[in-house]
């Protein structure tokens, strides 16, 4: 008798399963703007899906799966549908990991195969005594398994449960529940229409509470402001380099400023804090800051060509945040306790990043001079003066801001940890950078070095800023400042240093060659 009943139940189950269509349920339309809670923050479903899936597999194989939201939904509901889901492929980069998993010849391996080998990976991880790059890679793989398991068990998709109302902003976590645990109350086996209407109803109720800026985040992601800014920055830089029309310059720069101020303001509204809490944000902010500083200097001196350095540097920063996402993480994460003081965060870090921006402008101008001297015929030391004097202006601004920023950092550290200066690598390196600029300025001040040497020194001195900004996080990675540590920055820095030194060396060689030709 029992057997008969269970067979009956199974057949009804299967019939109900057939009515649940992943294709139509998991469509962008329904899912994209749903509010979900993850990592301590309510965000749009599409953002959560993108963060999770791209963490697991990098870029999705576009031709097989329509979108991140669709795929994450499929994974969550995969037990309720008979249609097959494209396998999730994980890239394996580390050579030792590849050897362990026997995938020397392929680049990717499916998550199911990794889960089969999970115990081996754990043993290998525990047996590594030192925190080598192999151990880190294994650790990351284990993390990915955990993230995947959370997705398929619906822990990741946590939806608003209106029965938990009323709720306060700081207890939001209590009102969000994994979706599949709610389903038995809605219906089991899941009936598509019921779930859809439930989700839409709950979204309305949540929106009424006005507890979260996640709708602004939807707008922010739809506008793609930084992508437009990148395009505009490219156009502006080319115009600044080759065209002399003042009105065109001004309108391009204003447009660029406006786009980025909007983008950053939206980001501030979403995150609830100043836009300088991880590497992505500091790079984006420094790009805007440079253009802004140039604008201020232009307004004081009424010379439009002051905008050039800012536009070029802005373009470089926008390129980095668009393409270097392994190094610069665009997601918005919760802050560690010590960063939670908005006043000091806003003042100290902002001042430092603006100082980096100003010094970067002097670096850009110095390099434009060097590159033009190498590649443009007839361009030589006679064209030096405007570059040198402009660089000097921005270097002075940068140095003053840097000194002020270092001191603000000391006061914040004194207020937070009880010591003004602790020789922490980040603060020490900001001091090292300041010292290098001080040497150059002092040497220039007494004419120990001439204008040409001054300009070249400015291009090399910026490397100390790059080390203070990136090197401490990606190469040294110790001390109180390593909040946003990740891999990949090492190669970036090495290339950066090598490129800068090459430009200077080639410049010197060319100078020496032209000198010999002149003599001959």
């Amino acid at each position, binding site marked *: 008798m029992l057997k008969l009943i269970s067979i009956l139940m199974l057949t009804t189950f299967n019939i109900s399963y057939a009515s649940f269509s992943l294709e139509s349920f998991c469509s962008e339309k329904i899912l994209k703007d749903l509010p979900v809670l993850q990592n301590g923050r309510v965000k749009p479903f599409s953002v959560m899906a993108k963060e999770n899936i791209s963490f697991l597999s990098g870029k999705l194989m576009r031709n097989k799966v329509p979108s991140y939201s669709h795929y994450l939904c499929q994974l969550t509901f995969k037990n309720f549908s008979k249609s097959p889901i494209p396998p999730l492929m994980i890239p394996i980069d580390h050579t030792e990991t590849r050897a362990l998993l026997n995938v020397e010849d392929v680049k990717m391996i499916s998550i199911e195969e990794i889960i089969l080998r999970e115990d081996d990976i754990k043993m290998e991880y525990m047996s590594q005594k030192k925190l080598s790059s192999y151990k880190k890679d294994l650790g990351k793989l284990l993390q990915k398994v955990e993230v995947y398991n959370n997705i398929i068990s619906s822990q990741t998709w946590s939806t608003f449960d209106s029965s938990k109302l009323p709720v306060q902003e700081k207890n939001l976590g209590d009102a969000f529940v994994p979706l599949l645990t709610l389903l038995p109350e809605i219906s089991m086996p899941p009936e598509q229409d019921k779930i859809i209407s439930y989700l839409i109803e709950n979204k309305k109720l949540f929106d009424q509470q006005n507890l979260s800026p996640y709708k602004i985040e939807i707008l922010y992601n739809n506008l793609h402001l930084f992508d437009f800014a990148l395009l505009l920055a490219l156009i502006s830089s080319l115009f600044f380099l080759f065209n002399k029309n003042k009105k065109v310059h001004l309108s391009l720069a204003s447009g660029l400023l406006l786009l980025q101020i909007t983008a950053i303001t939206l980001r501030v509204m979403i995150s609830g804090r100043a836009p300088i809490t991880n590497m992505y944000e500091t790079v984006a902010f420094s790009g805007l800051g440079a253009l802004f500083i140039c604008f201020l200097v232009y307004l004081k001196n009424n010379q439009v060509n002051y905008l050039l350095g800012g536009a070029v540097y802005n373009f470089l920063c926008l390129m980095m945040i668009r393409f270097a996402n392994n190094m610069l993480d665009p997601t918005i994460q919760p802050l560690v306790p010590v960063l*939670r003081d908005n006043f000091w965060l806003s003042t100290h870090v902002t001042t430092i990043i603006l100082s980096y921006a100003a010094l970067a402008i002097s670096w850009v101008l110095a390099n434009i001079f060097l590159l033009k001297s190498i590649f443009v015929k007839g361009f030589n030391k006679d064209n030096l003066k*405007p570059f040198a004097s402009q660089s000097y202006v921005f270097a002075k601004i940068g140095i*003053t801001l840097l000194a002020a920023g270092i001191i603000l950092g000391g006061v914040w550290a004194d207020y937070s*940890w009880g010591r003004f200066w602790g020789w922490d690598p980040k603060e020490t390196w900001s001091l090292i950078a300041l010292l290098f600029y001080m040497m150059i300025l002092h040497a220039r001040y007494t004419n120990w070095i001439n204008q040409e040497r001054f300009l070249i020194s400015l291009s090399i001195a910026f490397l100390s800023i790059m080390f203070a900004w990136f090197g401490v996080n990606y*190469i*040294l990675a110790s001390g109180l400042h390593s909040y946003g540590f990740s891999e990949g920055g090492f190669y970036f820095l090495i290339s950066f240093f090598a490129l800068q030194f090459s430009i200077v060396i080639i410049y010197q060689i060319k100078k020496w060659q032209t000198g010999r030709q002149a003599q001959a």
Partner: protein
Amino acid sequence: MGGFYHKIESLFGNIKFGVSTIFVFAIYLIVGTIIESYYGTDYANRVIYKSLSFQILQLLMFLSIMMATFKRFPLKKRLSGFYVLHLGLLLIFIGSLVTYIVGVDGILTMEPNLPSQEISLSEDQVQLFDANGSNITSVNLPYITMTNNLELSLGEGSPIKIKSFFSSAGKRVIWKKYPASVDTVTMGGLYNSVHLQLFNERFNEKFVLTLQNHPQFKSNLTLGPLSIHMMHENIIPCLKTQSDFFIWNLESFKCEEIPNLKEGTTKIRFKEIVFDAKKSAMPINLTGKEIPNSPYRLFNKIIFKDNPNLFVLGDSLAFFNQEEDQFTVKKMETGKFVSLPWMNFKIKPITISHTSYPEYDYYYQRPIPNAQGQFDQPLKVVKASIGEKDFWVTNERAFKIGDGMMSFYLRIGSKKLNLPYTLTLTKFNMDKNPGTNSPASYESFVNIFDGNQTQDHQQVKVFMNNPLKKNGFTFYQSSYFPIDQATYGSVLSVNFDPGRWIKYLGSLLLVFGSFWHFAVANRKKSKKSNSKPRPATIN
């Protein structure tokens, strides 16, 4: 005299000296950050940041700045920004000097509901305690990485001398031969010592066991659920039999079977003595009182049958084999491992000896990061001596001198500062990020008991960015540590910085002076450029 001063002024005050000093200073700092990433903050402090050469370098910078300023006397109006800026720098140096000499920087560890008043500072000391745990005297160790040429005494005219100091050390086991006066031939079993390695997939540890009374090693060890006991090898024959009890003779070092032993009995008769197996291994007389001076002891095999218990007996291992319901004895061979029946453990003897005894030997090594890349408190050792005898004192465990009431303990500890009031942690709160396990913020509720005040105590809340200030001291929420499932202890960092306001004033002057100086220079520049033709444009 004036000529001499002018020489000094032009030597220290000229720009090339200034720039060179800045350059060397920057190099020191670069090296410091690299050293810190390899060997940790404490090591970097000892080598660079708190080293004598670095202090001298800072003195040279100070002189350079001061002389460069004096060189530009008498005061000129256009250099106002310059004077203010450089005065600011000088004040920062002076403030730092004041902090260095008079300031206090330490940590206060608080366990819940336990009054604390002892601040741990960063300097190391060798400390002497009496049998009750009170500190008798201590001597400061130099803040360097290591030395073999110390000539310190622990207290005025004390016989305890300190010769070497290693701020981070490694240790290894060395073996020393027993002197000829010790009969290791006939009494070999008594002098057994072993160095063993125990491991499975998750665990890998080496340890030493010895039968003799030893300041560093014991005869038994507990590792989680596993207990390891080292005993005289002569119990082996009695261990192998089926009986639940046997007698061990402390004078002859032999074991004896108990004749007529009944199954399940707990009152055991042996010759003219009685044992109560439920109470103890000591023999008792008819009234139930223990017989002192008796060489006989009862060995109860039953208590070692259920839980994992491993016996090390000479060069053999023994454990209760559940399947065969008897004790298995296996001989050990150096370098070969023996499988144990619990948790996939394997045990491998590194050294077995009854003619030599083991000792820890310490050597200097640079700090090594742990598996998470952090630098824990390292092993610190000094080599001390009393008369001709050398011995090691560490920060891991106390070294005992003397016996009973006249025992003294030596160890390396941090210098302490006692507050005139106590702080007690009554509650520790931790807020987590919603839906996660990572701490968003944490706070300590602290009771201050200041015996001088008429009111009993005050209650304050200390949390990140909200420190407690009292009597010029500032207490900051620094971190926490778990005590058990739900309770945490709190760590406050304590700071007393009388140089603070001098440094702040200096910083203000520095920034203000920079603005002023650059603004003046700018004005002069733009005045010049207005009278000249426009400079060529960039493109």
